[in-house]
């Protein structure tokens, strides 16, 4: 897991500072959250099929929105969930724009291309690499909801949080994860 989902976002408290100081303190807090959540949220955005530059831009928008959200004194409850939820919605919007512009549309990263220029590490066997590539190929072939559920779970979100991000029921999250994990298990037994 990239990080522990049980970590509280209140690890970055903002003191009751005077109004004049709040923006700079808030900026520091936002950047600290950015450092912490950038990799997990980017991985989630890439699972939408966004190109890395587009995903980075979505991420910037998400954290600017978070800045406005906190500056307006709004809820600090589960900021991690908030960030994933807004990232999800922004990714849908970004992908829609990208689809309208065929030249900018990109598919999911092709693992075979991605890994072609990297030789196996000394400690990593060819069989292990092939197994990893087979797993990722299975994931790429999953229906989008199952793929996004798996991606959010891999980033440490609980079922309730996944349901909120994707706007689906808890039962749908459980069923979706069961299907995708069953496929992963079967692919390892081949």
């Amino acid at each position, binding site marked *: 897991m990239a990080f522990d989902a049980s970590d509280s976002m209140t690890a970055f408290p903002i003191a009751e500072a005077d109004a004049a100081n709040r923006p700079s303190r808030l*900026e520091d807090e936002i950047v600290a959250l950015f450092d912490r959540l950038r990799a997990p949220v980017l991985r989630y955005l890439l699972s939408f099929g966004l190109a890395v530059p587009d995903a980075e831009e979505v991420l910037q928008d998400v954290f600017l929105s978070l800045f406005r959200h906190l500056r307006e004194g709004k809820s600090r409850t589960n900021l991690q969930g908030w960030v994933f939820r807004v990232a999800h919605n922004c990714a849908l919007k970004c992908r829609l724009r990208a689809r309208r512009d065929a030249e900018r549309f990109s598919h999911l990263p092709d693992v075979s291309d991605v890994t072609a220029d990297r030789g196996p590490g000394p400690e990593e066997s060819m069989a292990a690499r092939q197994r990893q590539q087979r797993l990722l190929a299975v994931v790429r072939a999953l229906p989008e909801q199952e793929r996004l559920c798996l991606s959010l779970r891999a980033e440490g979100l609980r079922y309730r949080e996944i349901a909120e991000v994707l706007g689906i029921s808890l039962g749908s999250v*459980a069923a979706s994860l069961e299907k995708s994990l069953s496929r992963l298990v079967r692919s390892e037994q081949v």
Partner: protein
Amino acid sequence: MQFKNAHLSEQELVLAADGELTGRRKAEVNAHLETCWQCRERMQTLQSAIADFVRARNRDFNEHLPPAAGPRALLRARLAELSATPRTWPGFALPVTRIALPGAAFLVVLVAILAIFQSTVNAEGPKPRLAITPGETRPITLNEVCLNSSAQVISPDIPESVRRQVFAAYGIKSPQSGQFEVDYLITPDLGGTESIRNLWPQPYSARWNARVKDQLEQRLHTLVCGGKLDLATAQHDIAVDWIAAYKRYVGENSAR
């Protein structure tokens, strides 16, 4: 688990692996795993697949992530820029400044801003703020959606307390609230909920007003129930950009 000695279902294994079981069921499943070698072997296989997937995923993505320094510096610059500007609500709410201006000058500025705001709304059309109103749906089947025609479905009245929450979220003060209708982003007859995440204030006066949006909702309902558009796409398109959806499904110039 219906029977004490029955093997665990695939879903129970996944729920147990993810710590999503609670209470008595959790205790039953754990007790079964202690005694049943077959289910324990299945659990280990599942855990192994999860571990392999996480390793593969991290290895694949992490090696493609550019260094954080550049994006972090960009974010810092944008935050500094944002901090230096007065607070505004993107879309259509009124700017809010923390600097107290003398009364007369403030009124002049306010009137000017209102004029600009109004022209912006008319030019681009009012849209909800994604962070506040991303759109939210409830589980609904196609049969339920199509049980009645769109015109026969009456959207539930929105309680005054919820309306006030919506206006507060958008920074709309009570004197202006009469200029807006609190509207569902995804209409209930397409599965939209009554949550504040699916409600937004829509100006009465704009060209892209609630009546125009009603046309889109009826059109989407017809397309979905006619098998020409799937429900999820209809929900998604109206939530992401209802004006673009109107142009696509109703027509570019129909709202004029």
